[in-house]
């Protein structure tokens, strides 16, 4: 499980926001997990390396429309993925 709060935001709030990220991979692994982040079409970079399989953390103000996080186990296997969406600014 990988969740964003908020899961989406209005474009009116600007291109970037802070997102509260929570994850729980206990049902799939007991070992450390890594969270990668990237924008669509860009290569992934490591955000949270070798962290506990369950936890939560706030990002900086750099999450934007389409920012995607991948939760992987120690062997690089994908456990969960989440993409941040926006709603059009009216």
């Amino acid at each position: 499980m990988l969740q964003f709060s908020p899961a989406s935001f209005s474009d009116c709030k600007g291109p970037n926001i802070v997102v509260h990220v929570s994850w729980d991979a206990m049902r799939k692994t007991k070992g450390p997990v890594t969270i990668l982040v990237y924008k669509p079409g860009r290569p992934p970079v490591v955000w949270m390396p070798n962290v506990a399989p369950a936890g939560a953390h706030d990002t900086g103000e750099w999450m934007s429309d389409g920012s995607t996080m991948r939760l992987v186990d120690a062997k690089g296997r994908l456990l969960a993925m989440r993409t941040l969406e926006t709603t059009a600014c009216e």
Partner: protein
Amino acid sequence: MNSVEIPMPEKPPRAGRPVLVRLITVVAVCLLLAAVSWIMDRTSIKVQAFAYAWHAGFFLNAIPVVLVFLLLLSLFNRLSLSLVVTFALTAALYIANYMKLKYLDVPVSFSDVYVLENLHASTLDLLANFTRVGWLIAAGVLIVVVVVVSIWLERAFFGRRSLARVVLAVVVLFCMISLGTGARWVGRVYDTDSLRVVPWAPMLTVLHAGVIGTVAFTSAERTRVLDVPVDAAAVDKFIAMDVGPAPAASAAGGDKPDIVMIQSESFFDPASLKIVDNSVSELPNLHRALASGIGGTMKAPTFGGNTLRTEFEVLTGIPMNSYPGVEFPYLQITQKTIPSLIRLARRDGYATVAIHGNSGTFWNRSKAFEAIGFGKFITESDFPANARRDGWFFSDDAMTDQIIGQLEQAKTPALIFAISIEGHGPYLHVPVDDKARRDAVPAPPGLVGKPLQSYRNYMYHIENADRQLGRLWDFLAKRGRPYVLVFYGDHLPPLQRVYAVTGFDNDRTGPEQSVPWFIVGSDVRPRRQHIEAWMMGSEVLRSAGLVQTPYYLLTAKAERALDQNPADARREDILQGVYSLGRLRLRGELGNELKQVQGLQGGSVKADMDQ
């Protein structure tokens, strides 16, 4: 009693089933197609499987897929077969999208249709290097088997002489032709707001609208890509801007120099990578030229491929940003005459020759070069049968032989524009003539396995390019005729495996990097300069001591202005002025603006219309 044979009844066609059942079946299949194509779309751009599902983009992205299915259903009259073929075609599109993002950093777009329209053996040969041909053949065979088996075993969906089938085919064809031709009603359906198009961020448009939805939107927009307005106020503002005096041009007098321009395929300085300290021993002639001539870094309007964008900017002086909707200039700008540096040289008495060791039809170059004003275009069919190849194509050695041959034959000053191809990717499995030399390329720290293999193959070929550059330069210097030698890379190579391991020294992304460029010659004084590709023309004219027309004086002015590191607002003023001037130049409408430039210093000005 005689037995009577009772003939078995034939299997009734589906026409016997209620219409409602068939309709529900088709609707269910269409919804399935919409969902699966969206999952493929999300997978190809590596986002969450149902990101932006159930928004307008989800449905609009599905429409072309559904249309293909319905067309096949009306043609084949077999439901499963139509579904399987539609899936296969959709999957092929998304695999192509994935590969294009991987190697070129851009998604599949409507402009790729132009590549398909210009599909020649040389194009297929090039594209085959990025795919596994065996898999493609296997997939093709599988599809043929499925088609044959299905037609034989599956029941017909429509009855004989079904009016519904005919009506369906007609309606679907109408919709597909409308989508393909960008009919106005398509533009109203695939509009900017409902698709949430983000013009400056193509990937965000794809995120909202899907790849297919974006292509459909672009189809409707493409007739408008050249219809970009000129901002007259921006032009006036830029022309009136004071940026200081222009440097003096090289003295015009004596024999006109021969001009040789080398556009070197995928040539960049690997020392810009973090893991490479310097490239002096690998590329000695590049560094020798940068030390003795004008040169530095050049921002190319493309990354990893699409050479013709850089080529167009260099030859015409028109920024690609003058037309943000144009992706393939030689395919989308098809007017009979295109103003260019080449036309100026020709008017000054130069023989103008283009040389490229590939088919002249690739990227529509033959037609484009005619419009640009080349007097002769030497292509692969003109290379001798025994011309040396190294890698996938003709070597830089063979290209240099052609350049030297043309110079030796010339009876007038010559401008030769040579486009190399030896350094073309992909690099993982590219062949090399001298494996020992390739294997001796030092491994940068941290580079192993496939990234190292790609790096070594790439370095092998650009070391060849540098060696041939040295050979040509020595020939020109010893020849006893004045000369100007221009060299630049067209874009960074598609070395994603290497970039993923190391970053760049300046911590910017691949598309933000620059390529090296330089000009050396009989009368060229050393100067370090960063330029954009569209500024190259004025640098060449100045170095050769040729007449600087008003348009090129203006691009030179823009170069000086941007070199002063202006604040963002002023920088934007400069660029918007240049972009609008570029549009006027392409349309041949520069008259009034040129009159304002008559007083510019730094070169003689021709008062005629710039062509």
